[in-house]
């Protein structure tokens, strides 16, 4: 911890966050951000269908999208990348997404405390005034272990 961590920038982070892992597999990409919000996009893909009768993205990948946008909104708000863990995430589905439509997730971090961060947001398929879903979530910052000089995580 001898050097201060670099300033978090969602646009730059988006370039390397989605190269692999779960979010890379989903093909998430960065769209836009402000001081306390981030918008990401989940592209349409046939093998992510949830209901065999309709060409609509499943709700699972939309949760992944909102979880990732939540994390990035928290780092954007705090200004730094710190390890965080999702405690609780609620998704209220307003309507199915349009057929063969990508879904965008826009999440704002409206409050941070020393150990918690609160987020809310919407998923939409083109018109942010007609959301597909609303979400609300709470995240915990994973504390650095003071016994470790390098600051390992102690989330267990």
């Amino acid at each position: 911890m001898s050097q201060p961590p670099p300033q978090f920038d969602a646009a730059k982070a988006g370039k390397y966050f989605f190269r692999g892992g779960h979010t890379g597999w989903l093909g998430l990409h960065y769209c836009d951000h402000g001081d306390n919000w981030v918008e990401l996009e989940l592209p349409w893909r046939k093998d992510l269908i949830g209901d065999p009768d309709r060409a609509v993205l499943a709700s699972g990948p939309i949760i992944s999208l909102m979880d990732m946008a939540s994390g990035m909104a928290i780092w954007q708000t705090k200004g730094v990348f710190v390890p965080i863990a999702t405690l609780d995430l609620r998704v209220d589905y307003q309507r199915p997404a349009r057929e063969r439509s990508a879904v965008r997730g826009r999440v704002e971090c409206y409050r941070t405390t020393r150990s918690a961060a609160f987020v809310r947001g919407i998923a939409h398929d083109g018109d942010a005034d007609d959301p597909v879903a609303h979400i609300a979530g709470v995240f915990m910052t994973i504390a650095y272990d003071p016994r470790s000089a390098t600051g390992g995580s102690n989330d267990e």
Partner: protein
Amino acid sequence: MMSDADLPFDLPAYARSLGIEFHEWIDGAPVLRVDYGTNIEGRPGHFHGGATAGLLENAGYAALRAQLLADGRTAQLKPVNITVQYLTGAKSKPAFARGRIARLGRRNANLSVEAWQDDPARPVASAVMNILMATD
């Protein structure tokens, strides 16, 4: 009993694509399983919260579909909401999930779902879901 039988319906494309499979029946409810892999990974060595939620949600739908089939009912299932509680980080090994139907009404079902890795009595995540059952 369907204890030795496979699932009497297909899992959605998304579930199969993520690697979610039917594992076994416990007390008439299907247990689903997903193996760890790069398409699951969030922070290094751990499940992404979205992958965990996908497993929970599919286990909830599978429990409801199995019950509706057993009851001879057909309905189109529509999600109303889901609340996921993350209890501890899910590690780089297989995870399992099973849904319980708390209330099965005519139009709405309320389910609770738990996911675990080594011990079903020590869940890594849980969820509460409301699912609308549309008939037309």
